[in-house]
């Protein structure tokens, strides 16, 4: 199975579960759907719906047409999360005025988005190399 297809299927289930769990009472510190998920990640109903939508798209890309669109999904959502990560960290710098004074507000979310972006783009690059080596052999 190609790495992109594996990634889309696994990531899809994980992020879909995170979105659904965000609505489960007791798993976030605030009222249902809001607060800090697992005490770390700032969420609200909109955030949870975004996670659910991202997960469903990943599963679509990973399963439809035998995962033919998984690599495209990895590229598109890798770019999306890179943009969001940059904007998130830039906002922190702007608010506090200095790199060393980054206030740990929503930083956990920013690092999560950075990780998602890095994995997605890494999968895109690796799946390209995988396809090329298959073509050669």
């Amino acid at each position: 199975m190609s790495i992109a297809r594996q990634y889309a299927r696994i990531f899809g289930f994980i992020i879909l579960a995170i979105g659904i769990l965000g609505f489960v009472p007791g798993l976030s510190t605030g009222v249902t759907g809001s607060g800090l998920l697992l005490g770390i990640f700032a969420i609200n109903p909109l955030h949870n719906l975004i996670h659910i939508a991202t997960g469903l798209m990943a599963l679509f890309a990973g399963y439809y047409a035998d995962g033919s669109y998984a690599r495209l999904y990895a590229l598109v959502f890798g770019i999306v999360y890179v943009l969001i990560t940059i904007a998130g960290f830039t906002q922190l710098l702007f608010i506090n005025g200095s790199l060393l004074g980054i206030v740990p507000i929503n930083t956990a979310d920013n690092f999560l988005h950075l990780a998602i972006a890095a994995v997605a783009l890494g999968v895109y690059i690796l799946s390209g190399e995988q396809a090329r080596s298959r073509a050669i052999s």
Partner: protein
Amino acid sequence: MRDAPIGEAAAMQLAGGARAASTASARSSRTDLVARSVIIGSGIAVCLLLAWGHLGLGAYLFPPAPSAPRQVAIAGPYQVTMSADSGQLLVGAHNSVSFVVRDRAGHAVNNAMIQIRADMTTMAMPVPPVTATPLGDGRYAARPLFSMAGPWRLTVTIADPGAPATHAAFDVSVRWNP
């Protein structure tokens, strides 16, 4: 001569097969276009939604209604009056807020430790709490930090020596810096 009808039949079969393949190919390229559009479109939608909610784009385009510059709340035996001295509260740490704390008899409470904790009401965005500076005559000044525009709740904890700590809450709206 006998080959001609067979040849025509074979040609017609081939033409039919080619038409079917072309139709299937067109359908397949349409399906491919739709699938790609769905993935790219959902990526754009997710990006916009994240920017709207997670980064405060919504509050930038549609600033929240201004909150009352002066609010009064009861916290146990105290009456707490909050004033936004710097005017409309903005994102950042340059806001100036003062609190006047009086007991039930109207006397100023001067020796309390006042701590202010701010958090968004739509999303958990806790910021480091700040301790207010006593100014005398029951007045305390603080400079709370707001990291994003939108609705916030200031929870004021009043710790007077010899009395249990009490809390007062004030809902305020914060806008992006123009």
